[in-house]
């Protein structure tokens, strides 16, 4: 008999477990059912003084709630220098406000989006599942953003990217490969800008007429070299070779031999460490490359690059984000005080500006009612960011209105292409560890 009681008891326990499990699901179902449209935040009760009429809902902050923002950046893996660069800038932007916004503490959550599609998506679901998050800074890599776009956008979030450069992210025409969804903003320049600058620099400034490019199979490098080559051909140049290496390759002599077959005037390789230094160092061994000018891009704009590449790097160029001015010097001073040294990559200014734009927009749209509850409309927040124009950021002028690149209309591109330059690597960088190098060309 005793055993029978036990059996019934255990059944009851499990039945109640299921009930417990079902109950919240049932009550929450309306909020969850169509996540595409419905706001994750609860609607304010009707008897409140403030009525949220935002199209995609409001975030409701009780009087002692913090203002919660998040980031989805590459904190681990081979490209973690990008994430460190951006996280540092976000933290400085928070410090600048004394850690408070709207009279509340700023709570900052940092998620790792890796540099891959699945990493981006997982981080996005993590961020989207927290209804208190107002806005996001991220991602570093374009592949991660492509996969995160839908989740972030349908959760009603706004996301500002410090270093996605793939042009397709801000195109909303699927026929052109566009993957844009509302809520996405990009503070850094698209490859349309950087590729064009690189092409013009090579053709006009260096006088190159033939060009070879090498990419490493990352979506970023592939797109950038394509845009660059197209611009170069538009100007009248000839592209003799478009090759590729693999991440993890160490012996570049074969691909360099292929390049050398036509002895091009310039070689553009927008790739990362350690493949970049291999190309630079081994290029001296290949007959036929003596007069070829090497040009890298922002992936190689890392302080360890010149030293790793050795004497061959002297006289080569890097295209990348270039920021200057008093505001930037001030930023660098803050960085030095907080972390020591200089930022590990070139995108911190965009992360810093993005965070500040987000904070300004939150301040602009937040409404506080009589009992101290603050409401932030999610669509209003997006609109406020979108309306950013003539913003005088550390990275130059920021303007988030729609832009036209040839036949393409881009949405959510905030960079005006000002913050770009070509750096020249000299002996000072290679031998004495000087960083960053001198900028010799700006568009």
């Amino acid at each position, binding site marked *: 008999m005793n055993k029978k009681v036990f059996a019934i008891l255990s059944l009851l326990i499990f039945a109640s477990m299921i009930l417990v499990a079902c109950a919240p699901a049932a009550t929450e179902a309306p909020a969850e059912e169509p996540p595409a449209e419905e706001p994750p935040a609860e609607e304010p009760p009707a008897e409140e003084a403030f009525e949220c009429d935002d199209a995609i809902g409001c975030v409701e902050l009780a009087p002692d709630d913090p203002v919660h923002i998040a980031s989805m950046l590459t904190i681990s893996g081979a490209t973690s220098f990008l994430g460190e660069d951006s996280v540092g800038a976000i933290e400085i932007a928070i410090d600048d406000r004394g850690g408070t916004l709207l009279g509340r503490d700023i709570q900052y959550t940092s998620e790792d989006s890796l540099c891959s599609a699945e990493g981006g998506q997982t981080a996005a679901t993590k961020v989207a599942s927290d209804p208190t998050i107002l806005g996001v800074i991220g991602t570093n890599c374009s592949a991660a953003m492509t996969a995160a776009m839908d989740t972030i956008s349908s959760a009603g979030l706004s996301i500002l990217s410090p270093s996605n450069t793939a042009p397709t992210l801000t195109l909303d025409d699927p026929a052109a490969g566009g993957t844009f969804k509302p809520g996405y903003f990009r503070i850094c320049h698209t490859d349309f800008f950087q590729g064009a600058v690189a092409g013009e620099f090579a053709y006009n400034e260096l006088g190159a007429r033939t060009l070879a490019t090498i990419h490493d199979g990352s979506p970023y490098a592939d797109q950038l070299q394509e845009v660059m080559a197209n611009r170069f051909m538009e100007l009248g140049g000839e592209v003799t070779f478009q090759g590729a290496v693999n991440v993890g390759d160490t012996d570049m002599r074969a691909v360099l031999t292929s390049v050398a077959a036509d002895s091009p005037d310039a070689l553009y390789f927008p790739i990362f460490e350690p493949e970049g*230094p291999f190309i630079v160092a081994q290029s001296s061994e290949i*007959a036929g490359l003596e007069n070829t000018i090497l040009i890298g891009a922002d992936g190689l704009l890392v302080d360890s690059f010149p030293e790793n590449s050795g004497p061959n790097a002297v006289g080569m160029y890097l295209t990348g984000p270039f920021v200057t001015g008093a505001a930037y010097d001030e930023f660098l001073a803050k960085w030095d005080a907080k972390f020591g040294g200089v930022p590990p990559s070139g995108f911190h200014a965009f992360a810093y500006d993005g965070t500040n734009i987000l904070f300004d927009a939150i301040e602009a749209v937040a409404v506080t009612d009589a009992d101290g509850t603050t409401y932030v409309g999610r669509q209003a927040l997006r609109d406020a960011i979108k309306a950013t124009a003539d913003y005088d950021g550390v990275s130059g002028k920021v303007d988030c209105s729609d832009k036209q690149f040839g036949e393409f209309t881009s949405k959510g591109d905030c960079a005006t292409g000002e913050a770009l330059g070509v750096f020249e690597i000299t002996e000072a960088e290679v031998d004495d560890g000087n960083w960053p190098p001198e900028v010799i060309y700006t568009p």
Partner: protein
Amino acid sequence: MLKGFLDRYLERFSWVSFFLRLFQIAAIIIIVVGVYNTLTTAKYTNAQWVTLVFAGLAQGSIYALIALGYTLVYGILLMINFAHGEVYMAGAFTAVFLANYQAESGFLARSPWLAILSWLALAVVVSTVIAILLERIAYRPLRNAPRLVPLITAIGASFVLQYTFRGFYGTVFRSYPTVPALQGTVNVFGAQVPLVQLVVLIAAIILMVILYFFVDRTKRGKAMRSVSEDHDVSRLMGINIDRIIVTTFALGGALAGAAGIFNGLFRPQGVFFFMGFFPGLKAFTAAVLGGIGNVRGAFIGGLLLGVIESLFPNLILEGLGIPAVNQLRDAFGFTMLVLILIFRPQGIFGERLAEKKA
């Protein structure tokens, strides 16, 4: 009944063999066409080909030295020491700090050979210690477990070693200093081949010969061969199996440590915690290519793989009109492995026995 027998006969022998043969013939035709096309377009000069061959040989000698470690361990324990690439990384990554310190203090410029010897010593010691620890912690307790179990601990050890060294030494990419004494080129068949590549190749061959004599002539080497034949009988003969296994791992580790320094000499960049993974895979491929468990095979396999990787994408694939051929290099290397294994399932120098045991 006869018909059934015939059917089965056809199915079992002719069917598989026929298609494999067809596959071989197709591959050979493709290769010949590719080579013919490339050579007739004369895009590359002879000097460029020679350069590529020597670059491939230098690279191959690194593979070969690492592959020896795989093959030695396999010969005795019949297990893939998946973490062996990390043993190579450990030595190279540690010695890079000594090398840079000596370059800064001027010691490298004053007495380059002594400096290189000191790097070698450090890398060999570190790699050997890591290899011995690996055996003690991750493999010895599992010596009687099913085959796949040590494979998983080896994979685990590979992760642990990578991220341990990442934690120790950070994420920054390091480089070996260039050694002025090894700069310059040598004229070989009309091509300027960097001196350092020849030095690396010759040093690797010397090490290989030493190893060969050790295994072939010394008492310890004899014991190693005996253990690889049969553990139980060896034990009966009074051989301390544990000691022999440790010796094997130590030898493999030492060779990997040396490979790390040679690699740093002729290709100084890209020293970081992940640097051992791909060379490890390639060396494993090389060991299988030569016939795993066979010392000579591992060495030849390594050199061959180096040359295949360096030469063949440009030589064969480009002639077939494929764009961005160097991207396909690893794929091509593995394809060649498949082709060779179809011809000889036991590898180039492998004995039928290896197949049996595996």
